[in-house]
């Protein structure tokens, strides 16, 4: 689209670019970043001569350089792209990631940074061996460096695949992974650590520039952060709609109320694009305990709801006890007063059922030739519904009238329809409800104040078009009614007379049972009868128990009468429906009465009413009780994982050895905190802006989903100021390249270091020469790069940020306890440390793999390996707490590791190294005292 403005150097490729639909600016910026990185790598490669240069850059990097380099290495694809994507898709809960990524450094600073540097070892395995005088422990530590490293390379690879798929539309995800992985691997094999330090310091500033500048431009054009946030939550206000707040407002309602009453806020109202159905609703997105932390609970609730609609006759029924106790004077209405109408904002439309035009006749048909219209404990909504039915007109009621409130008993003479209608109007008026006709001819039920307002403005159009669900008397849950038909042999046209003066719920349901040939379930809630039901009626057949008789259906006459069987059945269903009840089939022989609810679909303007059934009811009840506590557990586990995991990431720790002394290591950490803290303010802004400006991404999956918001968002500027959008998008692409290149190279160096330095140099060939080690470093880089690429190709479906969180959780359960305890507890023994680290780390690894694999099993085109784990999903649905503890294991794995360390160390107390006092002194005494001692002496000689 911008082929005219493609930089000179790319002019020759213009036709090619046009065919591939590649944006020249984006390609140019990305190419420059990659070339500059590679050039710097080669340039510095000439200058890194010794093994010491390769591994830890000769330990002579200044605080400023080192802080920039650590930050550069730390700000991975997860930070650059993943956080923005996750904030966009999950909202508030995703904010914990950037905060804890940054704050985890504080833990590193407080407990680990200084002592570790003073100890003077190259890598974690060096530290493990030096602290415990144990070569065995070194091997264990090496294995863990590789494990955690691989877990952490996967999200970087996903970032690479996503970015390349964005730059070259049509390029498959795996190709991007292979291409970028190969380039970086080559670069590391040739450059080594010294090159990486320089490159990474440069890359930090590159990333900082790339994330902040586009944000400032976007905010200047489309409104600042706070403004963008203020639109999220309340819907666009309708000033003509009377706003009131119900007695017990939900948070969502209250936010909306506040926002709408604050007229000032709406002066700066921003235009939002409509959210697609897949996007979380504003309230769940904005508030804590949203989609991320409540996913397990939601899955569990859905399973419970599904179960409730299946053949379990004892679940989710409306009647708590034996329904036969509801006989006598109890009417349908009084039963339904225990139901609540769910909050629907705006208007509810109550329509007379068109198929039952002669409404009063139908009422009489069901309720007999009563002399009175009589309702005990009438609910406003039922009175309005009856009014609509009797007058044959549509009634539109404002939900803030308190539709479920009770108006008391009502008894009117059942004379003529017209008198009954005016009597009902009078009854409503005494309760403060007026009915006015609007321009469209519908009747609107309003409070007297609203009527006064309407009269003042003199403009009937001041009342907005009805919004909200249309609620017809005949509406029933489609699934539920279609599943229940008249009993075999009963023709729908069969005429009949049903004769009741004052029907009880039991009698009405008995008619229904008679018509459908089904039995109302549960017949009872008493334990003996339940057992009887389970034993298929054996107990009652043997006369061990005697179930009470089913009430008389009262259907007196078949073959003659004013109404057909189908009409009577429909009328009963309609009557139930009006009172928030519905009938649900149970197997072939039963039905039960459940609560039917009106719920809203999120921002789907067309049909906002969705009638759901017992499923929703059971689901909701379960969620009310369990959702938030589970989400709280998830949140805490996430915090622990990231905070402790930061302090245990191997590729970050190795950087501390490049500080000249412990004080410098501490100062470095402080500057790292400031540098990354500044950075982390920005990615959530991308997420918030993306939700308002580019919600289409919610519909994408894999590399085309919200993970690419950082790359894609600046491009919308092209609509106003071309080619600014492309330039800025090019800059963020360059930043993304910097992000996954720097982290991936850092990981490669630390993993290759472990392989070459520990596995080869220490274990396989201790007598290897310097040159052999250097060669091994290069070969190792290629091997590890290849494995990382293969792993990266598998994870397109997982979110970048989520995968990083998992790597952190494993590090938190293994390295953090090791480092923390080894630095601060002198009685720690090798066996204790190894047991704790291995158990914690492996348990976390196992649990995380299980949840990730079972998630991948449900993805489209899942590979055969992952589908093996699909069987776990029902288990997770049944045990949401276990699912959370497996997905985020830090909350139990970190304490487990530490406890094991303490217990096993106590048991093996005699194995505490003899020179432990000296070791603790080296770890903690200031270096000016000259106690510093290089544990790994041989490399210093070179």
């Amino acid at each position, binding site marked *: 689209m911008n082929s005219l403005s493609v930089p000179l150097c790319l002019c020759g490729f213009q036709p090619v670019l046009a065919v591939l639909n590649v944006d020249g600016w984006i390609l140019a910026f990305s190419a420059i970043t990659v070339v500059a990185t590679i050039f710097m790598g080669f340039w510095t490669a000439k200058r890194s001569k010794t093994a010491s240069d390769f591994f830890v850059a000769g330990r002579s990097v200044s605080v400023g350089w080192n802080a920039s380099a650590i930050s550069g290495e730390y700000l991975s694809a997860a930070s650059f792209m993943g956080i923005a994507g996750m904030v966009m898709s999950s909202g508030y809960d995703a904010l914990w990631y950037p905060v804890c990524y940054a704050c985890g450094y504080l833990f590193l600073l407080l407990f680990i940074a200084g002592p570790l540097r003073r100890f003077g070892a190259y890598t974690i395995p060096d530290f493990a061996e030096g602290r415990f005088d144990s070569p065995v422990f070194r091997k264990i530590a090496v294995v863990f460096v590789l494990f955690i490293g691989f877990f952490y390379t996967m999200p970087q690879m996903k970032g690479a695949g996503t970015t390349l798929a964005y730059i070259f539309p049509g390029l498959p995800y795996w190709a991007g992974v292979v291409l970028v992985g190969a380039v970086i691997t080559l670069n590391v094999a040739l450059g080594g650590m010294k090159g990486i330090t320089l490159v990474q310091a440069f890359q930090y500033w590159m990333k900082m520039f790339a994330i902040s500048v586009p944000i400032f431009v976007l905010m200047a054009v489309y409104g600042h952060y*706070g403004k963008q946030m203020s639109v999220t939550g309340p819907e666009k206000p309708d000033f003509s709609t009377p706003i009131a707040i119900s007695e017990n407002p939900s948070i969502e309602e209250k*936010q909306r109320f506040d926002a709408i009453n604050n007229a000032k806020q709406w002066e700066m109202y921003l235009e939002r694009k409509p959210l697609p159905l897949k996007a979380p609703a504003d309230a769940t997105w904005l508030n804590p305990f949203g989609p991320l932390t409540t996913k397990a609970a939601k899955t569990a609730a859905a399973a419970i709801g599904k179960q409730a609609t299946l053949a379990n006759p004892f679940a989710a029924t409306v009647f708590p006890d034996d329904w036969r106790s509801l006989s006598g004077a109890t009417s349908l209405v009084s039963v339904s007063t225990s139901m609540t109408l769910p909050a629907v904002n705006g208007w509810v439309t109550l329509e007379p059922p068109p198929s039952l035009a002669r409404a009063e006749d139908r009422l009489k048909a069901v309720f007999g030739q009563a002399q009175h219209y009589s309702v005990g404990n009438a609910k406003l909504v039922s009175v309005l519904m009856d009014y609509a039915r009797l007058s044959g007109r549509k009634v539109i009621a404002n939900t803030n009238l308190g539709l479920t409130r009770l108006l008391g008993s009502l008894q009117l003479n059942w004379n003529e329809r017209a008198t009954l209608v005016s009597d009902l109007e009078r009854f409503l008026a005494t309760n403060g409800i007026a009915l006015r006709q609007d321009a469209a001819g519908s009747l609107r039920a309003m409070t007297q104040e609203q009527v006064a307002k309407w009269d003042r403005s003199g403009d009937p159009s001041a009342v907005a078009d009805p919004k909200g669900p249309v609620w017809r008397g005949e509406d029933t849950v489609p699934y539920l009614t279609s599943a229940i038909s008249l009993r075999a042999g009963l023709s729908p046209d069969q005429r009949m007379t049903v004769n009741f003066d004052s029907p009880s719920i039991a009698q009405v349901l008995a008619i229904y049972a008679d018509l459908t040939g089904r039995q109302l379930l549960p017949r009872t809630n008493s334990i003996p009868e339940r057992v009887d039901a389970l034993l298929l009626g054996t107990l009652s057949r043997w006369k061990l128990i005697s179930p009470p008789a089913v009430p008389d259906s009262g259907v007196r006459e078949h073959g003659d009468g004013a109404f057909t069987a189908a009409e009577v059945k429909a009328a009963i269903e309609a009557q139930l429906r009006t009172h928030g009840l519905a009938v649900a089939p149970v197997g072939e022989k039963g039905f039960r009465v459940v609560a039917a609810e009106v719920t809203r679909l999120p921002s789907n303007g067309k049909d906002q009413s969705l009638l759901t059934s017992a499923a929703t009811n059971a689901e909701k009840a379960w969620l009310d009780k369990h959702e938030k506590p589970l989400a709280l557990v998830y949140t805490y586990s996430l915090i622990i994982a990231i905070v402790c995991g930061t302090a245990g990431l191997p590729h970050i720790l190795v950087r501390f050895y490049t500080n000249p002394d412990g004080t410098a290591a501490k100062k470095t950490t402080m500057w790292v905190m400031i540098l990354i803290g500044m950075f982390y303010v920005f990615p959530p802004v991308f997420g918030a802006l993306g939700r308002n400006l580019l919600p289409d991404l919610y519909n994408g999956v894999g590399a085309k989903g919200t993970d690419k918001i950082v790359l894609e968002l600046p491009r919308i500027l092209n609509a106003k100021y071309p080619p600014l959008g492309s330039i800025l998008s090019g800059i963020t692409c360059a930043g993304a390249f910097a992000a996954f290149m720097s982290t991936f190279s850092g990981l490669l160096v630390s993993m290759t270091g472990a392989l070459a330095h520990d596995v080869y140099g220490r274990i396989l060939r201790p007598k290897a020469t310097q040159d052999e080690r250097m060669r091994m470093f290069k070969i190792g880089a290629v091997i590890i790069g290849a494995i990382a690429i293969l792993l990266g190709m598998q994870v397109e479906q997982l979110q970048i940020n989520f995968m990083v969180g998992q790597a952190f959780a494993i590090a938190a359960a293994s390295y953090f306890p090791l480092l923390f305890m080894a630095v601060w507890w002198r009685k720690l023994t090798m066996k204790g440390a190894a047991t704790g680290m291995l158990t914690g780390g492996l348990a976390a690894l196992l649990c995380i793999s299980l949840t990730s694999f079972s998630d991948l099993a449900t993805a489209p085109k899942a590979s055969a390996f992952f589908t093996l784990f699909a069987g776990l999903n029902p288990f997770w649905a049944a045990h949401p707490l276990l699912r959370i503890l497996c997905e985020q294991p830090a909350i139990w794995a970190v304490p487990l590791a530490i406890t094991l360390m303490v217990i096993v160390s106590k048991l093996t107390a005699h194995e505490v190294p003899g020179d432990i006092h000296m070791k*603790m002194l080296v770890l903690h005494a200031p270096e000016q005292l000259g106690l510093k001692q290089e544990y790994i002496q041989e490399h210093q000689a070179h």
Partner: protein
Amino acid sequence: MARQLKLSVACALMFLLALLCLPLANYFAPELMATRIFGFTLTWFVLGVLFFPFVWIISYVFIRRSIALERAEVSEVRHGGTEARSKEQK
């Protein structure tokens, strides 16, 4: 070592208090945390904006105190000889 640890623990407690109390506040006082400030909800503003400067302050204070402590130790050892050092070990 003991004094360094005490300092570290004090700073860590400050930080943990803030970090662990925010979810509790979200849990028990959702209405309060949903109050709007500059367009943000209160809880979003605290977590997404204010938290970073708070951590900088803690780390800055810690670095200054910690380096001062090291200096004090060095001068103590240089002037007090080996006694101070052996005391340090206990």
